[in-house]
């Protein structure tokens, strides 16, 4: 039974990440069209266009995968067949695993059981995330190398340098967050954010660690290799970078990995800085507004509200990333390195130092103490 519950939770986490990944593909199409004043995906209508509105979403959700998976899978001459096959999976698999430690809801009380809504209750969840993020780079590197193409190789080299550079700033931003909340457990971090500052404001990470949020968000976007950090796949310079030589289903796996990365950055930002599944002033027994007003709610409804809150926040940060991706131009490579090493890294370092000093001097400043 316990095994069944764990299995179900993993399935839910996987479904969330798959659904978000697929939906993002459509949101990106339509969103970019909106930003660029175009119509966007509007073909592949059903019923011969009788409907008054177009079903562009059908295009993306059904026609696109169908096209990609039926396309010929081309392996270029002189490529390393095994690594060429392996690389897409190495890019996608660690990302799926990352979602396993992200809490998507509070405890669910059903039939006398309390189930923590987190697929895997890993103690040091942040370390788990860091480990998997650091492994994600292999898909890019090997995809670039195995293709036996100059463009792909350049993309792979750029990708590896970019990702290890930004991992440092990302890790340091996480250190400040850990100092604030005093735990490595993601579910615990979310629980701590349910407290209130001065009895009014929810104790979300963003109010304690605005700088860490900034650094983490930028570094996270750089890790996901999308514009303005899309140098490993810069289409105007490298055709498609590390996946130039990929086609059909293998290419779609790389594309999927892109969107899953967006979802993971959004989920981590939500969890660490915006209270995860916490709804302000909502407790296990209902709302307790600062004015003294209380609205009792059943436990199940509270849990459902929490899951919805997580999904809404997730959606907002996915959208923010798509907005940035279609607004900012690509950085030059030296600008990319300057940003990572000369801006983000010092900011993150100072942030860690200041946080540590404050945590020592002002007992009670941190949420955990």
């Amino acid at each position, binding site marked *: 039974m316990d095994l069944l519950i764990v299995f179900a939770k993993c399935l839910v986490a996987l479904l969330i990440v798959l659904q978000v990944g697929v939906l993002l593909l459509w949101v990106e199409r339509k969103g970019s069209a909106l930003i660029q004043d175009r119509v966007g995906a509007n073909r592949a209508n059903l019923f011969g266009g009788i409907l008054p509105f177009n079903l562009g979403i059908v295009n993306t959700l059904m026609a696109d995968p169908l096209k990609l998976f039926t396309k010929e899978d081309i392996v270029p001459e002189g490529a390393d067949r095994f690594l060429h096959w392996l690389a897409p999976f190495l890019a996608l698999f660690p990302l799926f695993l990352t979602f396993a430690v992200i809490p998507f809801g509070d405890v669910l009380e059903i039939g006398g059981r309390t189930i923590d809504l987190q697929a895997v209750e890993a103690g040091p969840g942040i*370390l788990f995330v860091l480990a998997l993020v*650091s*492994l994600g780079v292999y898909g890019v590197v090997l995809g670039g190398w195995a293709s036996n193409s100059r463009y792909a190789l350049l993309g792979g080299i750029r990708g590896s340098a970019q990702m290890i550079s930004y991992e440092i700033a990302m890790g340091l931003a996480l250190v400040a967050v850990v100092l604030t909340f005093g735990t490595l457990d993601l579910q615990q971090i979310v629980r701590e954010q349910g407290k209130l500052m001065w009895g009014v404001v929810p104790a979300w990470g963003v109010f304690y660690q605005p700088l860490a949020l900034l650094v983490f968000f930028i570094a996270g976007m750089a890790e996901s290799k999308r514009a303005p950090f899309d140098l490993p796949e810069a289409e105007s310079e490298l055709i498609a970078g590390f996946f130039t030589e990929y086609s059909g289903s293998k290419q779609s796996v790389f594309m999927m990995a892109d969107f899953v990365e967006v979802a993971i950055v959004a989920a981590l930002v939500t969890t660490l800085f915006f209270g995860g599944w916490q709804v302000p002033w909502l407790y296990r027994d209902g709302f307790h507004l600062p004015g003294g007003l209380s609205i009792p709610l059943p436990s199940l409804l509270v849990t459902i509200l929490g899951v919805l809150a997580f999904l809404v926040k997730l959606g907002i940060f996915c959208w923010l990333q798509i907005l940035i991706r279609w607004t900012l131009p690509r950085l030059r490579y030296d600008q990319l390195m300057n940003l990572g090493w000369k801006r983000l890294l010092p900011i993150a370092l100072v942030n860690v130092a200041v946080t540590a000093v404050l945590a020592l001097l002002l007992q009670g400043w941190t949420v955990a103490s």
Partner: protein
Amino acid sequence: MTAFWILATLAVLSAIVTILHRSPVYGALALVQTLLLIAAMFALLDAHLVAFLQVIVYAGAIMVLFLFVIMLLGAEDEVRLEGRSALRLGALVSAVALAFELATVVVAKRVDGSALPASFGSTEALAERLFSRWALPFELTSLLLMVAVVGAVVLARRKA
């Protein structure tokens, strides 16, 4: 026990692939596999933080650096394992001798796993040790890293 034998066999095999494969890229990948298996061994030995660090630092950073350099320099396969045959023979003989010697000094004792505190191998326990008893070596390590960074930058600059 089964877990140990599986991990140990795989780790030894992938370590052998690392040093014998002609292509440096495959060698590096086999080494990544070895490192991940060793991380699993650390977890088996209740050293959880060290296991995570092994993945983050070794597999995630150091090996990516290796692959980066291999790709940057162009990974040509070695035609054969060069080196004079006398050297190779010597290497094998001394390796077997070394393995034998190292393995025989080992006295097989059972690990008593009963009275282990719950916090063993946790981040808190390691940090406590690191920042009290080992504080000075820790600071020296940061000095070492600083020297390494400066050295690497100087080496990279001089070339240009």
